[in-house]
């Protein structure tokens, strides 16, 4: 795994990027930035394919083809869409789709160069309640969550396993506590929570802290920080955590919960697809239409998976 570049990129610089063989994009009409991101992705890819993963059926749709999310069919996916370079529109694709695409291409003998496009919004939409008395519900981003497993990342946990949970956190309080609440002492022995600091924009880090304040008051979680727009840092947090699982350590298994910013999710997905397939606890948020407004700036990340 090599990180080639991660930069803020101007419109002109975007135009100068070399064309990618395939661009994978998600839902276009979610908000201003999704429109923008899909438009730019299309321009950058020789071919542009819409990707959608249904966590309920574990089927990933690429263009008009469907694949079940097991190793065999994912390998087929990478063969059917052979490419020397791919673009993943991280603005419109979610963690599950990104991780599955990366996992699919990890089967290729010659791994493609991968670029990620990510567009920041100007603003996230707040809840309309005049009085959000509880931290963590200040934003109105998702209409529901569903805790379905993503097959490649659901290695069985057994009675001898104890888990170090690494959770990347964002604006939506309650997502991690819900996970911990469900586990209720079954596997988790250690928790590390990772905040995106420095944030995209000033004060956004505070929102994330506020959303999760109750968690920090009550648990003995270790707190780490990595840049909100830095996939490499997120990736490295996981590599280091994995390295610290030894025969002598309290925990023997790593579980990742990518609830943070999308760039953090890219880092987590890269780790999941290329390393020893950790367990993932994810809740597949159904993104609300119009959840953000405006187009702020554009990030370009490039990695080499081989």
């Amino acid at each position, binding site marked *: 795994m090599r990180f080639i570049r991660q930069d803020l990129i101007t419109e002109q610089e975007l135009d100068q990027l070399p064309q990618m063989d395939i661009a994978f994009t998600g839902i276009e009409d979610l908000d201003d930035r999704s429109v923008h991101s899909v438009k730019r992705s299309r321009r950058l890819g020789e071919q542009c394919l819409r990707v959608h993963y249904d966590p309920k*059926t*574990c089927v990933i749709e690429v263009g008009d083809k469907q694949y*079940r999310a*097991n*190793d*065999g*069919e994912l390998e087929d996916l990478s063969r059917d869409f052979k490419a020397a370079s791919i673009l993943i529109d991280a603005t419109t694709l979610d963690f599950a789709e990104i991780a599955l695409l990366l996992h699919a291409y990890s089967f290729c003998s010659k791994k493609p160069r991968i670029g990620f496009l990510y567009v920041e919004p100007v603003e996230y939409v707040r809840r*309309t*309640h*005049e*009085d959000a*008395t*509880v*931290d*963590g*519900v200040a934003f109105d981003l998702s209409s*529901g*969550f*569903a*805790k*379905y*497993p993503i*097959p*490649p990342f*659901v*290695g*069985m*946990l*057994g*009675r001898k396993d104890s888990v170090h949970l690494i959770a990347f956190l964002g604006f939506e*309080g*309650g997502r991690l*506590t*819900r996970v*911990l*609440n*469900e586990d*209720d*002492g*079954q*596997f*988790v*022995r250690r928790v590390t929570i990772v905040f995106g600091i420095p944030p995209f924009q000033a004060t956004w880090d505070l929102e994330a802290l506020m959303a999760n304040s*109750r968690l920090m*008051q*009550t648990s003995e979680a270790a707190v780490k920080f990595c840049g909100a727009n830095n996939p490499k840092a997120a990736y490295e947090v996981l590599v280091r955590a994995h390295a610290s699982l030894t025969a002598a350590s309290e925990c023997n298994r790593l579980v990742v919960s990518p609830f943070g910013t999308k760039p953090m999710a890219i880092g987590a997905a890269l780790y999941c697809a290329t390393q020893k397939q950790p*367990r993932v*606890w994810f809740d597949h948020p159904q993104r609300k239409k119009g959840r953000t407004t405006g187009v702020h700036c554009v990030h370009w990340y490039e990695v080499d998976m081989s």
Partner: protein
Amino acid sequence: MISMPAIADAFLKNRADNLPPDVFPEFIVPPFFQHISIFKDSKSVRVLGGRGCGKTMFLRYFCHGSAFSIKRAEIRDDEFSHIGLYFRPDTGFCSLIAPGWLGEQTDGFAFSHYLTLNLLAEVCQALRNIDEAVNLAGGPLRACDVRLGGKLVKLLQLAEPTIDALEVLVDERLAELDLWVRNPARCETPMFVHFTTIITALAEDLAKHSPRLKMLAFRVFVDEFENLLPRHREIVCDAIKHPSQRMAVHIAHKREAVTDFKTSGQERVVEMHDIRTIDIETLIVRENDFEVLAAELFLFRLFQADGAVSCAAFKPELLHDTAHLPYRSTPAYRQAVVAYVKQILPELRAPEIAALALKDQSLRRRAIEMIKKGLEFQGLSDVVKAENLISEEVPEASIVLGAVLNRRSQSGEEALRIFQRLLSDGRSKSDAFYKTGGWVDNNLYGCLFHLYAGLPKRPNILYSGFSRFCKIAAPNLRFFQELCHSTLLLAYQRQSADDIGEELRVDLGIQATAALQVSDAMFEDVLQLGPYGDRLLDFARRLGSLFEAYNRRRSQSEPEINHFSINRADAFQLSAAAQTILREAKIWSVLWESKDTKNKADSDASQYELILNTIYAPHFKISYRKRRKITLTAMQLDVILIQSDSQFETLVKQLVDSQDDEDTAKKSGSLF
């Protein structure tokens, strides 16, 4: 030097987190073990209980880790006739064991296989525990030396007929299953086995191994039954429907979380016939049992933190074994432990709080204001000055007078006359204020809650005291420990028992502040309760603010409203979305359903009552006592459950006759 832990931290261990297999030295046998048969016969049991009631610990207590604990004084051989095996599924993994992923039928075989392998691992561990048990009454026993019979060897394709070989095989088969489930097309399908055959065969082999194991039987505890997929539940229900001599299957789940106990066939598991229910939360609050248990827990935690416990009756070593329940059930013992903790967390009765309120300038001012508004309302402002209607001689009457005067149905002149007679003649058993069931009886708590609610910064000592903590927390021991933790943390900060050096005693104000802190925190935690946490939080907030609005009425004509009833038939008309939220609220104990029939001749079986969990009472500044309710129609409940804020706002205005609401205009904006 190792510093001693802060006394408050003794109450931090209040989650099932990291529960070891041996909970014997931690578990306090609850009094109800004496009243009911617990797993005495081989009939299956369903253990009901919400989050925080100690359900998992309860199950763990009956499993092999605790049964053969080295901390246990004497372990009789009859333990072998019901060796407990604990099973809690990896739900994420199990959700892939579904027909859509693995194919019809295969999913069922795969789940049985998964369950079998897990139980086999448990049996191996149980046998190791028996081998290591030091206090077996019949002397040591080498259970692991058992030679496994031909049936098991053949079915499992065991390399050798030994427990060692079995343990290795279980690990291999689990790894194989793990790989196959994720990649069913790529890997070879495992050779499935079923627990009813395998575990029974293993039990037979063990029974032959030693005469002491002749009666050997396993009881399997399936925890978090509700988290299994329907098909997986059916497989567990099959085993419940068809029990065997050597194996009984028990399940545990949250209240309301499972309603259908279908087997793989057309049959269903039937209460009484196939299964009995142990409802922990109902049993734990029988009579005064919760107070006693909470007091014992409090003292046990102090004892663990090396705190001074000078209560002669309390003997920590007698808490863990059912054998000592007769001692712990004596009235003398029960009174002694409760009384001792009441000294540490003292409380005042409502009349005493009324007297104190009149000494507190702000509360007194509010009481006067209430009377003043009442006099205006009755057109009596010119007759008497409100200030003159406050009397230290009759503080309770002075406080409830304000409410009485604000009532349309009550003649102000008459109320004044009675009050003034009270001032001149003193209280009597027949006056309208002090007679049994009179104004003071009915309104004092409500009025005090009303007075305090207007001063949110003032700690409300109506929430202070050990027995009040119990009422607010019951039946949830986790909540109780949270209250204790916050209280001791505020009172003693990070001091250890040694630093404090004297017996504990916590001031009323501190207790009240702690109660509010915990209540606020638990309210915030609603967000994390299940997949609809955010909706539940909205619902709890609305219901709480509705009761809060009632409490704001000066008339207090219906004081202490904190629950509602709804017509059973009517409830069926709720929309599906509303019913989901209502059901979730019950699963997560945000609401309690009560089959209240007590002291109401006209009680109507077609009505049922729903109580907002009392842990949220301090957050909303309302009463924790179950006194009065409102009746809601399905339409109204639907608004509270799922409709818009503005519709809810309109409903509150409709329901709460706001004519006597203090500063309605000012408050209505910030209510939501």
